[in-house]
């Protein structure tokens, strides 16, 4: 059975299903940093004493339902993105309810069934939803025990659970949860102090439960939105120019209208789509329409290139200076000062599956199946875009390909809804083509930093200056102006002005504030609101370049003074958990016995605590450089991560391993290319990413054991440290310090000079 579409028939899809449970939704407002501050309209905090998303949705029946027959349904506003959250949240619920995980059906974001927990972003799902479900389940277990005790005439603390879905009395009497739950209402607010199970008693949490979603993915099961086939479904393709800021001139609509199998051409303002009975027909119609000439309709793109080109583009934009950190302590005189600029070009999310959505308009109600990270935002966007009352829009999450931030998912959902409104009754399946995903998705912003740091006589850092230039990373759509179809409407919904995410989460400023204790630290965010390229969130936001910069600078200082890279880090770190992950990575790597840089081989390490709030991650790696080609191979990499209590250690390892390899690809070879009038990266040959021939020899992940410690988000923790460890290893191997991404073979070969 499909894990994504559990026990729902096709009819269930159409009608909203039989499992719909009613509960009071919290009023929404613009308050909490749910989902890490990305998006806009987060749910209102109504119960500040509660933990995680219980703050905004305190009612137990919003999270957990126990049927009389003992079946348990758990509701989350977060969604599976391939990060394993479905399994992790099931484990959390199973542990605190003290039932087998197989007894639980988990329902993910659905605007008519689940709490609104904002975006599934910012490595917040375990903190927001994991914490909420943990505490809600503890509340439910407490209520069940109290009710059973009342029935038996026992003190509540005499009633125990045994992991089998039954409540037990000391005299051997027992009752199934379902029977006791039938005597209770769970439409009550959680209390903050329901006792949690002791880590030493854990049966499910912290265990390596196999991922629930993997069997279907290995066998061709219905695992993705892309796999949904609804009765009467038609296939659509949206028709646009080659990339954002272009439009087609006089596409040949007449010829396409005559193509057999074409059902409708939808043209509204600047929006154009074709609907056909068969997918291949829709694609052929699209290809015919794309033969039209195109014109650029927006301001020019940045000059093609990396390094200096990125810096020139960003420095030419008007900046608003936001102070991030300013400390002054007495410190000795500077003995050695290093100043450096670091850059990152624009990066594509590069999901393997182009974005897809299905929408259906029946009797004045629009249903949208979406793999957006913001199901509730899709609801708001579609309602505004189509002028529908909110109660006439239903958005349901279904899994897509991995997204790593805001790719085309939100846009394609809005596109599908526009088309479905014009073709009432029929489910409309719309998938973007490969070149549309590359051409129209928001990119990860190009960025630049300038750092200046000084070592004193005792090898202590006596001053640290960090300036970062960046566009906003949070252009998540919260209204119709945030999606392409909104910009193309007549009259258009204007794109909203980008805003920075305030610290401590930050966006371009994320992780620009070092966790290290440096004397005289000055950090400023030069926020650039004018965006020459359509950009939004890419996994880790500004932390990728900020951590790269900080951790590169530490090695630059250390190398100049002959200090060991691990020692300079430990000497400036007071946070014990940070020290522990650095030491754990170093120990497992064999840092003290590592081969010394010899011109070809070398080792590097780096550390960050994501946002200084999330998981701690240290990475060490050994590289081998081919001096003739500049090609760098990672022979082995070791990461250590502390994410608090790991719900599923193998899930954590999978995320860190994946983040490390993805970051090697971003950092080592990726840059979106620009032509004068369009993006010039439109496929995997014009935007090459890491392939098997270039992945590390081995990757090992150490997951720190922190029994019962609060959940810390893991999914983005490896991006920054992996990037910096690569640069540091290359510098150790060759003596060449690369500061501009990508650290490509061409760039390294040029820096190495003739062999």
């Amino acid at each position, binding site marked *: 059975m499909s894990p994504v579409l559990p026990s729902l028939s096709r009819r269930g899809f159409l009608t909203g299903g039989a499992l719909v449970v009613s509960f009071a939704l919290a009023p929404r407002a613009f308050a909490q940093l749910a989902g890490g501050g990305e998006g806009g309209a987060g749910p209102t905090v109504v119960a500040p004493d509660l933990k995680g998303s219980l703050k905004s949705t305190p009612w137990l029946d919003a999270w957990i339902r126990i049927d009389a027959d003992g079946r348990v349904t758990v509701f989350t506003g977060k969604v599976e993105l391939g990060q394993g959250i479905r399994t992790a949240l099931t484990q959390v619920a199973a542990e605190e309810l003290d039932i087998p995980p197989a007894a639980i059906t988990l329902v993910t974001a659905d605007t008519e069934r689940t709490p609104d927990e904002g975006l599934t972003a910012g490595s917040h799902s375990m903190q927001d939803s994991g914490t909420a479900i943990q505490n809600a389940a503890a509340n439910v277990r407490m209520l069940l025990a109290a009710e059973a005790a009342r029935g038996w005439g026992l003190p509540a603390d005499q009633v125990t659970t045994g992991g089998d879905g039954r409540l037990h009395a000391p005299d051997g009497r027992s009752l199934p949860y379902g029977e006791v739950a039938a005597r209770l209402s769970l439409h009550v607010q959680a209390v903050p102090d329901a006792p949690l199970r002791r880590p030493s008693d854990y049966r499910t949490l912290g265990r390596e439960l196999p991922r629930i979603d993997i069997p279907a993915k290995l066998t061709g099961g219905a695992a993705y939105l892309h796999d949904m086939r609804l009765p009467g479904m038609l296939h659509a393709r949206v028709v646009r120019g080659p990339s954002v800021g272009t439009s087609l001139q006089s596409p040949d609509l007449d010829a396409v209208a005559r193509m057999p199998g074409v059902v409708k051409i939808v043209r509204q303002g600047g929006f154009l789509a074709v609907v056909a009975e068969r997918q291949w027909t829709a694609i052929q119609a699209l290809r015919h329409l794309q033969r039209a000439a195109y014109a650029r309709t927006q301001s020019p793109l940045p000059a093609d290139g990396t390094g200096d080109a990125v810096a020139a583009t960003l420095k030419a934009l008007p900046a608003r200076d936001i102070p991030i950190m300013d400390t002054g302590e007495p410190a000795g005189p500077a003995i050695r000062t290093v100043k450096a600029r670091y850059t990152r070009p624009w990066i594509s999310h590069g999901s*393997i599956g182009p974005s897809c959505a299905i929408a259906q308009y029946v009797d004045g109600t629009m249903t949208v199946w979406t793999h957006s990270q913001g199901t509730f935002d899709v609801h708001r966007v579609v309602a505004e875009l189509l002028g529908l009352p909110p109660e006439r829009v239903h958005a349901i999450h279904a899994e897509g*390909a991995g997204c790593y931030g805001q790719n085309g998912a939100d846009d394609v959902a809005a596109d599908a809804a526009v088309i479905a409104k014009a073709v009432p009754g029929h489910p409309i399946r719309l998938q973007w083509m490969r070149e549309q995903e590359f051409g129209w998705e928001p990119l990860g912003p190009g960025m630049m930093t300038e750092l200046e740091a000084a070592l004193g006589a005792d090898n202590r850092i006596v001053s640290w200056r960090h300036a970062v230039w960046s566009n906003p990373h949070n252009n998540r759509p919260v209204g119709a102006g945030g999606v392409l179809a909104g910009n193309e409407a007549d009259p258009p919904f204007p794109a909203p002005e980008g805003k920075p995410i305030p610290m401590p989460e930050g966006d371009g400023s994320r992780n620009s504030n070092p966790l290290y204790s440096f004397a005289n630290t000055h950090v400023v965010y030069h926020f650039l609101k004018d965006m020459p390229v359509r950009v939004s969130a890419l996994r880790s936001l500004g932390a990728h370049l900020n951590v790269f910069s900080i951790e590169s600078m530490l090695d630059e200082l250390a190398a100049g003074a002959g200090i060991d890279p691990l020692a300079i880090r430990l000497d400036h770190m007071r946070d014990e958990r940070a020290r522990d992950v650095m030491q754990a990575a170093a120990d497992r790597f064999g840092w003290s016995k590592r081969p010394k840089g010899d011109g070809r081989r070398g080792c590097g390490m780096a550390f960050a605590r994501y946002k200084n709030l999330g998981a701690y991650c240290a990475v060490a790696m050994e590289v081998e450089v081919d001096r003739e080609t500049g090609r760098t191979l990672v022979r082995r990499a070791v990461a250590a991560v502390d994410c608090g209590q790991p719900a599923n250690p193998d899930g954590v390892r999978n995320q860190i391993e994946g*983040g490390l390899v993805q970051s090697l690809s971003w950092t080592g070879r990726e840059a979106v290319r620009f032509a004068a009038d369009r993006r010039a990266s439109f496929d995997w040959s014009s935007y090459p990413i890491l392939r*098997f021939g270039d992945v590390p020899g081995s990757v090992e992940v150490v997951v720190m054991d922190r029994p019962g410690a609060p959940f810390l988000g893991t999914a983005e923790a490896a991006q920054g440290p992996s990037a910096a460890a690569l640069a540091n290893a290359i510098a150790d191997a060759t003596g060449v310090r690369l500061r501009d991404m990508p650290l490509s073979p061409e760039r390294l070969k040029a820096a190495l000079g003739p062999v």
Partner: protein
Amino acid sequence: MTVTITVNGADHALDIDPATPLLYVLRDDLELNGAKYGCGLGQCGACTVHIDGKPAFSCLTPVGAVAGRRIRTVEGLGSADAPGLLQQAFEKEQAAQCGYCIAGMLMRAQALLDRNPDPDEAQIRAHMQTNLCRCGTHMRILRAIRRAVAMRKGVQSAQDVRP
């Protein structure tokens, strides 16, 4: 026109434009989810199936060109209830994140194992070069293929064959 194709051992007669890429026939007509649309250009491998035992990009293969040839998809390797050996190895190694590339990875790897039941690490990596993964699951995919090799040899722990 009518095109008859053989998929996972079953014949299907389809009234269809023979230029239609096999991918859309598998997905939309035969309702097989395994092969995925990734690029339509033969650059990513998400659509990989076997044609007469050889790995092929179904997104680039017109259905008219495979009439009468043996097509195998990931559904032909096994099911969730009765997974094939390579699928078991991927499950054991939890070798998926989003998993969108994985059916293509399985078919690509299966083609190697069918030809060479005992490939070395370099052969595996070179063979898998055509297939892209964006989640960075590569290390697990490699482990899963090594595990499948070991399972076939009767060795239960892939630990023993890690390079």
